[in-house]
């Protein structure tokens, strides 16, 4: 029997969602101040309007649903999934007011793409977008990468025990430190230290490359936020091609790989335990999958013969592959070139890389390396069982921060999420084909959206069907939250309708 949710459930969900919405309204003040600094009055007003509306909704919710009770698991999950939807709707207000998005839905697509660190964009005339709006696009990637709720819990909420439930709801099933708030703050510390260093490096390089100092450092900060959070937005319409710089490409590859690394590994590096990187199953799996998928891409590109020299093929192929594998979505070629110049085999290699993703407890999307490692180890264990005598005890170990004996529940969890991702990739492909796009193009774009990558083969444009925009929004949302909180929300609505 399904139980109908009680009033207290709704109050808890409303209250904590309200607090997160208040947090979102506060973050809008950052681009507003930047707008004022650059004498962009109308953009500053856009953000003031957005902040006021969010604050109004947040305050009303916290007052009407005021409670001192803590969240249970179901409520925590629902708060996360609802907060992400609320964040998408509210963060889209200033973007829509700018006039650079064709509709409010397009602006919502952009903000979900930003929060989910995907990087697919529907912005029009991006090259004339204000500093304030551009900063907002990248800032929401930075916030979404760490986790909207993690941000709210770190800065706008003072120690409450429900934080862990919401932390898990945002697809962070590992804690770096025993306390969730401390973990969140560590994640922020890592991100901000890298932000400062990378902005300095990218900014200096930008000046050396001939950019104006203000632009160089602004671009440096934006590019870091989108690369480290494996997002993929850029301030200019040409993406990374705008910079025409090998050094820029090399640095962004390093940042993308850092972003795809588990925050636990960052912690180990920071605390001097560098051996963990080489022993960890995620790092090893990532190295193997990069090599294998790159091999497929190289064979594919070689077949087609688009690139005249091996070095050029390596540069173009490797950059798009790392960008796809880490779930970033930076590109040094035009979307159309994937279809016209890459050939089917190279595209398949890239799609596999996008589908696999980066590390768990990182900002990357996709199936993730730990799950892939667990599935590979299980396969190995089963093969051993077949080969060895029946009475032999076959145990399988893996190293992830410590030595772990593989158990059925870990395998089941890994397989469940993997199957969910594959289904999500498939559904998006089906919708794309339904709207008349070729199969491979649809698979490419669907995988890119669901694995929060952001590479596009040209389907994602302001003119694409509304149904496809909605499908990709749902894919980005479900893919980023890794299903559990989305499933809980669906279950909650079913309980509201069918419960007794």
């Amino acid at each position, binding site marked *: 029997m399904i139980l109908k949710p009680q009033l207290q459930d709704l109050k808890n969900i409303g209250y904590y969602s309200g607090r997160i919405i208040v947090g979102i309204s506060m973050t809008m003040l950052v681009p507003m101040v930047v707008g004022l600094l650059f004498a962009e009055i109308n*953009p500053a007003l856009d953000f003031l309007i957005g902040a006021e509306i969010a604050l*109004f909704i947040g*305050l009303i919710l916290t*007052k009407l649903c005021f409670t001192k009770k803590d969240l249970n698991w179901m409520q925590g999950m629902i708060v996360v999934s609802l907060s992400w939807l609320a964040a998408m709707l509210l963060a889209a207000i200033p973007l829509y007011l700018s006039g650079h998005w064709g509709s409010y839905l397009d602006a919502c697509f952009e903000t979900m793409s930003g929060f989910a660190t995907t990087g697919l964009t529907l912005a029009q005339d991006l090259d004339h977008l204000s500093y304030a709006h551009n900063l907002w696009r990248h800032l929401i990637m930075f916030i979404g990468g760490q986790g909207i709720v993690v941000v709210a819990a770190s800065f706008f909420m003072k120690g409450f025990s429900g934080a862990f439930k919401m932390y898990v709801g945002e697809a962070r099933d590992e804690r770096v430190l025993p306390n969730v708030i401390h973990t969140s703050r560590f994640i922020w510390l890592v991100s901000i230290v890298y932000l400062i260093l990378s902005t300095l490096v990218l900014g200096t390089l930008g000046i050396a490359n*001939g*950019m104006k100092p203000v632009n160089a450092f602004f671009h440096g900060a934006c590019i870091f936020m989108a690369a480290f959070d494996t997002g993929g937005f850029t301030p200019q*319409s*040409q993406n990374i091609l*705008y910079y025409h710089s090998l050094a820029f490409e090399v640095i962004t590859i390093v940042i993308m790989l850092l972003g795809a690394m588990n925050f636990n590994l960052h912690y180990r590096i920071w605390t001097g335990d560098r051996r963990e990187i080489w022993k960890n199953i995620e790092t090893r799996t990532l190295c193997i999958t990069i090599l294998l998928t790159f091999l497929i891409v190289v064979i594919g590109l070689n077949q087609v013969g688009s690139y005249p020299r091996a070095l050029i093929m390596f*540069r173009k192929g490797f950059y798009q592959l790392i960008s796809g594998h880490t779930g970033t979505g930076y590109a040094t070629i035009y979307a159309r070139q994937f279809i016209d110049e890459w050939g089917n085999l190279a595209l398949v290699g890239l799609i596999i890389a996008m589908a696999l993703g980066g590390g768990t407890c990182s900002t990357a999307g996709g199936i993730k390396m730990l799950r892939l490692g667990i599935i590979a180890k299980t396969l190995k264990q089963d093969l051993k069982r077949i080969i060895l005598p029946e009475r032999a005890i076959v145990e399988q170990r893996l190293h992830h921060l410590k030595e772990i004996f593989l158990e059925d529940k870990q395998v089941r969890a890994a397989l469940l999420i993997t199957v969910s991702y594959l289904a999500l990739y498939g559904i998006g492909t089906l919708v794309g084909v339904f709207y008349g796009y070729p199969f491979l193009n649809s698979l490419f774009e669907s995988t890119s959206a669901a694995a929060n990558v952001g590479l596009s083969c040209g389907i994602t444009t302001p003119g694409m069907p509304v149904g496809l925009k909605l499908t990709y929004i749902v894919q980005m949302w479900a893919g980023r939250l890794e299903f559990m909180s989305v499933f809980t929300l669906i279950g909650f609505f079913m309980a509201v309708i069918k419960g007794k």
Partner: protein
Amino acid sequence: MRRAISLFIVSLSNLIFICGADCFAQQISSTELINNAKGYDGKSVVYVGEAVGDVMVRGDFAWVNVNDGENAIGVWVNKELAGEIRFTGSYQTKGDQLEITGVFQRNCIQHGGDMDIHAQGIRKISPGRVVGEELDTSKRNFVFILLVVLCLVFVFVRRRKSK
């Protein structure tokens, strides 16, 4: 008369040579270039668009990204020619409108496989300008209305708290 005839013949033969030597004298859009890159690869093209972002000087040359309203393409241009560009497009400026005559490269060997145009000539069709921003009064009024509403909500919240 003979001079005029010979000049005509030379001009005609030049025209035939130019047409025969892979030149697309007609203006070509970025979408056309990107979608049919193989066909235009290594050929002379005329491309018109607005200079956007930064003019990035690299030695004796410079990168200028030129947007024709559909896409932006990188143009590799002599530093002196690039020096004529006064405005580049951004939020507060409309960039110079340029007509680029140059060789289109699908995967430029010199520039790591980038799709670009190596400019042979640049002509400024219309100069850019600073775009003055006018205060949107409807947005300003909306901000004030929301501010009043927020103040009322604060009062409501305070009163409930004190009760």
